[in-house]
Structure formats: C-alpha cells, structure tokens
C-alpha cells in the first residue's frame, strides 16, 4: 500500500535509520553550496535546491581511495587490503538523475571483471530519492531519456505533494525492506489522487539524432570550435556523476605507504601522454571529442547506455561557461541540416 512521509517525520526517519546502524547522507548547506554529505540529524537536511553541487558518485567511487597499503623492509614487502570501506548507509534526498547514474556505472565496473570497491558499496548503500519539484536552465534529463521523477537506480522514490508531505514509492526489494524496518515513520495514504509536484524539464535536443551524427563525424570542425573556450581544468569530469576515469598512484613514506585510486579526467593533457612525450590526444579539441564520443557513442555501443544523465553539473561548474547541452543541440541541429565539415 502506498505510504506517505511527512516533513515533520524526517527527524524520526533519520534517527530510526541511525538506530538501525545506517550512516545517513543528505543534502546539506555548506556555505554557498548544497552538498550531499553525512548528517547527524534531520535539522541539517536542506531541500530547497535544484540539485546538489556534488554528485552521488563519490559515495561509491570516492575522489581518492586506498586500494592497498604496504610496508617495506629490505627485500620484504607486506601488502594489506583495506577493509570496512563499504559502510551501510542511506542516501536521502538524492535526485533521480544521480540515482540513475548508478545502474549506468554498474556496467563499466562489472564488465569483464568486477571492481569490489564499487560493488560492495553498491550493496551497502540504499538510495532514497526525492523527485525534482523544480529545475533550472542547465537541467536536461528529459533530453537523455530520463525524467525529473524517474525511478531507475533509486530504491525508494519520494514525490512532493505539498510543502510538508511526500508520496513514498518503493522501487526495489532493498527499498521495501528499508521501509518495512522503519515502523511508525511512514503514514498510510488517505484516499484520493495526490497532486504530485514534479518539475517540467524542457527537452532541448533530439537524442536519437546525436549518435548517428557522431558515427559519421569523427572529423568535423565542431570539435575544435567546442574546445576553444576550454581551459582544460577538468572540473566537468569531476562533478559528472558518470565520469569514471581514474589514476593509480603510490603515496608513501620511506617504509610504508598506500596505493590509491584518484579521480582523473580525459580533459587533461597528461591523461594520455606517454612517457616518451608522444600524446595520442594532443589537442583540447580531440579531448572534447573523446568526452562527447565516450558519453554518446562508445558507451552506448559497448554497454547500451548513454553515459550522461542530464544533470547539467558540468555546465553549471564550467569556469569558461561551456554548456554540453548546447553542444548536443548543435550536433542534433547539424544532424538535421548537414553543414560544412571543415
């Protein structure tokens, strides 16, 4: 039976979760930012925003993560693997686009061989999403096949029906078990069809035009044009919930250290540079082509998913005011009226 969650019960919701041993994560204010972060109590939750500045990615694939530690003596090395990195947690109030990024990323972290760091965290964390009741000009989820109230990737979806009331829908068995374990927090629904407050996100481009165009236009003037403003800072890749490139480096003192996996990004010149100095992607235009192609062509061909959820963070954060949905609009328009390739 459909349940309701009242805003006044957020407190008991969070306390009950903590009582059951869950770490609780929710959007909270951090100076001028709204960050998904650990909270101690419901009073820290902030829901008056379009989208959090950070994506959900870092809770499954941290910015920096120890994959092993080692201790060295002369002609002796001992390696230890980290334990306890997958902490039972509930992420409350993430957005549907962020939640959807998880099944998209499951594919790369599980194909051919599984990355236990990702897989164990996925098992340990339950996602309670709140459908978007507003959006901004950067949002384009509806252009990539999603919706502001999409369910995929969430375990539970909440949709606002009044200033202090949410409809609760369980999406997965994990979500159902979570709700069952929290007696007294959720209320039964009164009769009648609730008025769901869901944002209307404008569709900006025809996604079905994009891949066929990319298939034909590896060489095209737009790649350089797109990149002219780019300063190669890579911020777009870090805030992106689906960018998943990483580096592996050793951090150590003389006799002991950690091998860590750090976020990396295809927009950096060093990303592909060989020790010899040869660089297979030596221009920013080539690096932009890689970013767009990976998200809208290569990933689609390999894993049958677009590697973009339309959250718009890359464009919000870009210091040069580049906008990926505008690029895709240009591509979709080019596809309809082929112009000059040079």
């Amino acid at each position, binding site marked *: 039976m459909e349940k309701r969650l009242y805003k006044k019960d957020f407190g008991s919701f969070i306390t009950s979760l903590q009582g059951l041993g869950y770490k609780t994560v929710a959007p909270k204010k951090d100076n001028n930012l709204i960050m998904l972060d650990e909270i101690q109590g419901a009073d820290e939750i902030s829901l008056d925003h379009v989208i959090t500045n950070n994506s959900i990615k870092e809770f499954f694939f941290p910015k920096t993560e120890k*994959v*092993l530690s*080692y201790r*060295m003596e002369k*002609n*002796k*090395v001992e*390696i230890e*693997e980290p334990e306890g990195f997958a902490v039972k947690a509930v992420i409350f109030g993430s957005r549907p686009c962020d939640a959807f990024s998880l099944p998209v990323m499951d594919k*790369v*972290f599980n*194909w*051919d*061989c*599984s*990355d*236990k*760091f990702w897989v164990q965290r996925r098992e340990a964390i339950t996602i309670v999403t709140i459908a978007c009741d507003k959006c901004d000009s950067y949002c384009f989820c509806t252009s990539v096949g999603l919706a502001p109230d999409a369910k995929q990737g969430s375990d539970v979806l909440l949709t606002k029906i009044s200033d202090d009331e949410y409809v609760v829908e369980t999406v997965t068995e994990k979500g159902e078990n979570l709700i069952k374990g929290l007696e007294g927090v959720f209320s039964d629904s009164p009769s009648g069809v609730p008025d769901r407050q869901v944002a209307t996100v404008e569709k900006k481009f025809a996604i079905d035009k994009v891949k066929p165009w990319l298939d034909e236009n*590896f*060489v095209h003037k737009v790649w350089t044009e797109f990149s002219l403003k780019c300063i190669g800072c890579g911020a777009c890749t870090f805030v992106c919930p689906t960018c*998943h*490139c*990483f*580096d*592996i*480096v*050793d951090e*150590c003192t*003389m006799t002991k*250290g950690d*091998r860590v*996996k750090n976020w*990396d990004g*295809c927009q950096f010149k060093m*990303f*592909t*540079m*060989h*020790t*010899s100095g*040869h660089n*297979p*992607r030596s221009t920013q235009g*080539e690096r932009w082509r*890689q970013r767009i*192609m*990976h998200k809208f*062509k*290569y990933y689609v*061909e*390999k894993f049958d998913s677009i590697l973009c959820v339309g959250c718009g963070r890359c464009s919000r954060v870009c210091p040069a005011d580049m906008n990926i949905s505008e690029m895709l609009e240009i591509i979709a328009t080019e596809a309809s009226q082929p112009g000059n390739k040079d």
Partner: protein
Amino acid sequence: MKNSNSLFLPEIAKVVSTRQLTAMEKYIELKTIDDREFDFTPGQFVQLSVFGIGEAPISISSSPFNRESIGLCVRRAGDVTSAIHKLEPGSRLGMRGPLGKGFPVKEMRGKDLLFIAGGLGLAPLRSLINYTLQKRDDFARIRILYGAKKPGEILFPDELQTWRERKDIELEITVDTPDQNWTGKSGVITRLMPSLKLEPENTFALIVGPPVMYKYVLLELQIKQIPETNIIMSLERRMKCGIGKCGHCQINGVYVCLDGPEFSYHTLKFLPEAI
C-alpha cells in the same frame, strides 16, 4: 587475476637477475615469491610496481616456454622505470598480470612470418620470435627486420647473432645513424622492405615500434598487398588499471589493455587516434 580479491592487488615478485643491455635499457628477470609457474601469450604485459613509486605497464620479453621466470626489457624513461633500473637481485616488486590478449599465435600457424621491430619494439617481439623458433615447424618462412637508432642501442646482440647463424630464419638489421665501426645496413627500417619477396596472402606481419614507424611501415606493407587482417601491431598507451576501467588507454570503444595491446590493421583503421 580475475579470482583475486581486488583487481588492484599485485603479487609480490623478486628480481632474480639484472643485465644492463644499453645505456637506457636493462633486462630484469623476475620470479614470484612462491615460485609459481608463468603462463602467458607473447605480446601480453604486466603492471609492474615499485612500492612507493608506482606502477607501469611493461611487455614480457622472455619466451613463454620458460615458465619459471619472466624477463622484461625496461627502458629508463619515467619514475617507475628509473626505480626499476635501480633494483638489484633479491629486490621485491609488485606485479599484476599477465594482462591483455597478446599476439594471435593460433592464426599465425602455417604462415610466413615477417617480424618488424623498431628500437625497444624488439622487447615484446623477442618473446614471440622465441616462441616461433621453439615451434619452428608450425610456421613457414620466418624473416626478422630490426631497426635501431644507433649501433650502441641494439638490444640483445648475442641473441641476434644466434638468429643470424640459424639457417631456418632470415635476419636483417639496420641503424638510422651508423658509426665508424658499423659495417651493416643503415637507414630507416622501411628501406629494408622494398626488396622483400613476399607471398602476401600467406604472410603475417608482426610490428612493434614507435608510433612514427607504424605509419611508414604500413605504407610499405600496403604496397606489398599484405591483407589488413594479417598486419598485427602493438600499441603503447598510458595504462593505469590494465583491466578496462580507468579509461586511460581507451581508443574509441576499445580498451587497449584488455582488447590488445596487439591489434590487426583491419581493426586499427577504424580506430582513429590509434597510431
């Protein structure tokens, strides 16, 4: 590695011996600390790590028929390889692998083989050459072209001499810049190619060298009408994970680490940025 707890967990290996080959290249022989046997295909590589410095992908240079140890020819170029050069017998290293698919040895069976090695490209090809020499009857004519920049940069001279003395293979060496004592051929490696008499349909060309070499060697092989499926090239990339996740070696939809690092020209010509 698939059954291991973590994809990033290396085995501990020990340096058995080291040998300075040239000013820049050193040959390192490794065993695992539990002396396990190695099982790999020529062309595969390992992620070798010096703890405290980091990991680097290095191709295996020894024959797969030697299962007790592996040999790697390491050029001193970056942080990790410089640290490897400082290792002495008994030193401990981390090793993940073998990684990648390696050369298509099954498809090569019964064919004429044309090896084209440029500089350090001889390191991975040496593994394949020694494999084919061990199974000599499985292959038809075997020819090896090797180009080095200078006489002093020629790798494995003793081994080259034994190859030269064999009657069942042909070897030609050239250097870009000869010195006073050099009596052999000089000039870039493609100069050795026009005079080759090949049966194109029955020939596999196996090429490893720097990116610039591929462009010119490919032109020559196309003149010789070697089928694109029979031209096999090994790609170098800034690999990190080695297991198709980190994105560093991605070319279009291909992960060089997993799907290669050897590819046929038939595949590579659809992968712009590959060469």
